[in-house]
C-alpha cells in the first residue's frame, strides 16, 4: 500500500466513534496499513472514500483461497519481495499428486500417508495441505468421490472439461477446488463452473498469451486464478519466471498477471523433487506438488517453508514450561533458559548431545535470548519463581537445584532468595553444556578420576 496513515486518515469520517474496534480514526488508519483491519470495518465511509481507498489499499498480488471457508488455505496475496520488508503471508501450499489411475485403493493409502505426514515442532503443526488429482483420459471419478466421502476433497483437479464438470458436481460447492483444464480451449467453459481456475503457463508461451487467457477466464466470470508452471520448463527459466511474475505484481503493479503460482516438476525422485520445490519455495511459488508422500523428503521442505513464512518482526517463541529431555528422573538436573526458539533449540540440542537426561525449564521472556532478556529486565527472579511454582517441576524432582545460564550469573543471589532454590551457575556458552553436565551429574567420578 502506497498511502501513509495520515493520507488515509484524511478520507476517514474522523468521528472517532470506535465502532471499528479502534478508539480513533487515525488508529484505524494505522492498522489498515498493517493489514490488520479491512475498510469494511468502518461503517461510515463515504462511497467516494471507499472507492479511493479501496483502489489504493488492494493487495498488489491477488489472493486465492482454497478449501472450506472456515479453514481456508490462502495462496498469494503477498505485499513484499523480501520478507524483512514486512513478512510473507500465505505459506506455500504443499500438494500431493494423485492420479486417477491409482484408484480408490491408491487414494486410501495416500490419505493415510497424508494424515501421518504431520510434524509438530516449536508449538507449530506442519502438514501438507491436500491433494492435486490428475484425471488421465476418460476415467470415472471414484477417487474424487472417495476423497469427498472422507471429507478431504481435492484442492486441485487436472483433467478434460467433461471430467472437470463431473468433478465440480461431486465436490461440495462450499469447498474451493482449483480446476485445471488440460486443453486451453476449455478455459471458458471450465471458468463457468464456479470454482477457481488453474491455468497452465507452458514453456514457450508468452506473457501476452497468458494474460489473454486470464482475461478470457475473467470475462467468463472467474476472478480466482492460479498459474501453474513446471515440468516442460528448464529449471532455471521457471524459477526466473516465478521471480519475474512476483516482481511484475509487487514492483510493476501489474494487474492481470499478479496471480498466485503453482510449481510442479513431475517425474523426479522424492529427493530431487524436494530440492526443486525448496528452490521454488525460496523463489516465491505459492503452491508446490510432491508425487509421493515420502516424509523424509517432505519434512525438510515443510520446515523450510515455515521458516521463510515466519513473521520476521516477531521472535518465534516456545511455550513456557518443563521440557523433559532423554527421560529424566527425580534426581536429574534442572536447567533454565529463555523461550526464544533459537535459544531453546541450541540449549536442548546441547543437552541431548550430552546424553545426560535433564529437565529443561523454559521461562517466558517474550521470546528474547538470555542476554537480551537480562538486559531488558525481562529475565527477573519473580518470573523464574512464578515458573517454578506453576510448571509442576516440584513434583518431578527430589531436589531444589537450578542450573542457570552463565551469562546471568549476576542474578544468582537474588534468584536463590526469591525462589528458595539452590542456584548453580552453568556455562556461558551452551556448547559447553555437555562437559558441564558430565562433571555436574557424576561429581564422584570426577573426584576419583
Amino acid at each position, binding site marked *: 500500500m502506497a498511502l501513509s496513515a495520515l493520507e488515509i486518515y484524511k478520507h476517514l469520517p474522523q468521528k472517532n466513534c470506535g465502532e471499528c474496534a479502534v478508539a480513533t480514526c487515525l488508529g484505524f488508519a494505522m492498522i489498515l496499513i498493517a493489514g490488520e483491519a479491512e475498510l469494511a470495518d468502518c461503517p461510515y465511509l463515504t462511497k467516494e472514500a471507499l472507492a479511493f481507498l479501496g483502489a489504493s489499499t488492494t493487495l498488489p498480488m491477488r489472493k486465492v483461497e482454497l478449501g472450506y471457508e472456515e479453514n481456508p488455505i490462502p495462496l498469494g496475496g503477498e505485499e513484499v519481495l523480501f520478507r524483512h520488508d514486512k513478512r510473507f503471508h500465505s505459506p506455500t501450499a504443499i500438494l500431493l499428486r494423485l492420479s486417477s489411475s491409482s484408484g480408490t485403493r491408491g487414494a486410501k493409502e495416500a490419505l493415510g500417508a497424508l494424515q501421518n505426514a504431520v510434524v509438530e515442532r516449536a508449538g507449530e503443526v506442519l502438514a501438507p495441505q491436500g491433494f492435486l488429482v490428475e484425471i488421465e483420459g476418460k476415467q470415472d471419478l471414484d477417487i474424487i468421490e472417495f476423497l469427498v466421502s472422507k471429507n478431504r476433497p481435492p484442492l486441485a483437479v487436472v483433467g478434460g472439461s467433461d471430467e472437470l464438470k463431473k468433478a465440480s458436481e461431486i465436490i461440495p460447492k462450499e469447498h474451493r477446488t482449483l480446476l485445471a483444464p488440460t486443453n486451453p480451449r476449455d478455459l471458458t467453459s471450465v471458468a463457468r463452473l464456479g470454482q477457481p481456475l488453474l491455468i497452465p503457463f507452458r*514453456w514457450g508461451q508468452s506473457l501476452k498469451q497468458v494474460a489473454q487467457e486470464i482475461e478470457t477466464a475473467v470475462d467468463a466470470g472467474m476472478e480466482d486464478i492460479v498459474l501453474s508452471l513446471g515440468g516442460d520448463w528448464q529449471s532455471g527459466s521457471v524459477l526466473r519466471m516465478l521471480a519475474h511474475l512476483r516482481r511484475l505484481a509487487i514492483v*510493476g503493479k501489474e494487474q492481470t498477471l499478479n496471480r498466485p503460482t503453482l510449481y510442479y516438476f513431475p517425474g523426479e525422485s522424492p529427493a530431487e523433487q524436494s530440492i526443486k520445490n525448496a*528452490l521454488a519455495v525460496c523463489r516465491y511459488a505459492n503452491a508446490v506438488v510432491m508425487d509421493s508422500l515420502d516424509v523424509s523428503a517432505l519434512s525438510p521442505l515443510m520446515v523450510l517453508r515455515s521458516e521463510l513464512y515466519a513473521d520476521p518482526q516477531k521472535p518465534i517463541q516456545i511455550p513456557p514450561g518443563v521440557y523433559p529431555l532423554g527421560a529424566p528422573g527425580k534426581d536429574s538436573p534442572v536447567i533454565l533458559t529463555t523461550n526464544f526458539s533459537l535459544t531453546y533449540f*541450541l540449549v536442548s540440542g546441547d543437552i541431548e548431545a550430552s546424553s545426560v537426561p535433564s529437565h529443561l525449564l523454559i521461562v517466558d521472556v517474550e521470546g528474547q535470548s538470555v542476554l537480551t532478556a537480562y538486559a531488558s529486565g525481562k529475565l527477573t527472579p519473580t518470573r523464574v519463581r512464578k515458573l517454578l511454582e506453576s510448571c509442576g517441576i516440584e513434583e518431578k524432582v527430589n531436589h531444589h537445584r537450578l542450573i542457570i545460564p552463565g551469562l546471568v550469573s549476576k542474578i544468582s543471589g537474588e534468584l536463590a532468595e526469591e525462589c528458595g532454590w539452590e542456584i548453580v551457575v552453568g556455562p556461558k556458552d551452551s556448547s559447553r553444556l555437555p562437559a558441564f553436565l558430565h562433571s555436574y551429574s557424576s561429581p564422584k567420578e570426577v573426584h576419583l578420576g
Partner: protein
Amino acid sequence: MPSWEEITEGYTLPSAEATPTLEVALGELRLGGRTAMPLFESSPLKVALGLTVLPHLGGLPPTLTVELGGENYVPLKYAQEAVGVGADFLFVPLSFEIEEGESLSSNEIEGAVGLLSELAQLTDLPLIVELSAEKRLLDTLLNAVAGALRGGKDWLGRAEEDTYRTYAAAAQAYDLGVLAQSPMDINLAKQLNILLHSNGIHYERIIHDPLTGGLGYGAQYTFSVIERLRLGALAGDEATSGLILVNSGEAWSGRECYSGQGPLGDPEKRAPLWEAQTAICGIVAGADACALLHPQAFAYVREAVREINAEPEEAV
C-alpha cells in the same frame, strides 16, 4: 523456442540501477559481480560449492560418521575424493579447545600444520580454513597455521569482533584472504568488514560468513541477513559488496536433521536433504560460496545448480 525477451515482451520491469558486487577470484572461479538478486535476471546462478574436510570425525552424529568413512576416515584421502567429485574449494575447520590455565601442545599445532601442508600439496583448490580458538591462543597458532597456507590463494579465519586485528595482521603478512564471521546481524557484519578494511584488508579479500542457521534453527535469519547484505551492496554499499559464505554443515547442529525415525522420516534420506535445503536457502538469498559437509548434500546442490544454469535443450 522463443527467447526470454520474446516471452516477456510487453511485461518487462524497468531495469533498476545497481552497483555490481565485487568480482573476486576463488581458485578457478570468478565469483560476485552480481547486478541483481539471484534468479532476478537471466545471468547464471554463480556460486562456489565446497566440501568440508574435517581433521577427524569426533563428536559427529553416527549417520554422518558412517557416511564419511567411519573408522577408516583419513582426511587426506577424503580431500582427494572431494577434489574428484568437483568441489570448488575445501573448507577446513580446525578446533583448538583447552582448559583454562593450560597451553596448546606443540603436537596439536604440528598436526594441524601438517594437515594443511599436505592439503596444499594435494590440490590446487583454494583452502578456506576456519580456526576455532580462544583469542589468547591465536598468538601461538596463527603464524604456524598461516605459514602452512599459500599466499594469494588460501583464506584464513574466523575473524570476529574481538580477533579481527590479529587475523588482519596474519593475512597481510602471508597474503591470505580473511574469513570473517558475525553473529547473524547485518550491522555487525558490515561493521566487521569495515574494521578489517581499516586494518588493511581490501573488501575483495574478505569472505563473510554471517553465521548459518540450519533448517529449523534459524535458517530464516540467515536468509534475511544475506538478502539485506546483498541489497545493500547492490544499492552501492561497498562494505557489504564482498563475498558471502554459508556453511550448511551447521544444519547438523539441529537434531531434527539426523535423529530417529518417526514423523520426520528416514534419517539417512532426510539428513542430506536437510543440509542441502539449508544450503539452497543461503544460495537463493545471495551467498557466493557454500561449504557442505555431507557428500550427498553436495551432490544434490551441485546438480540443482547445474540444472538451473543449463541451456534449455540440455535440461531434459
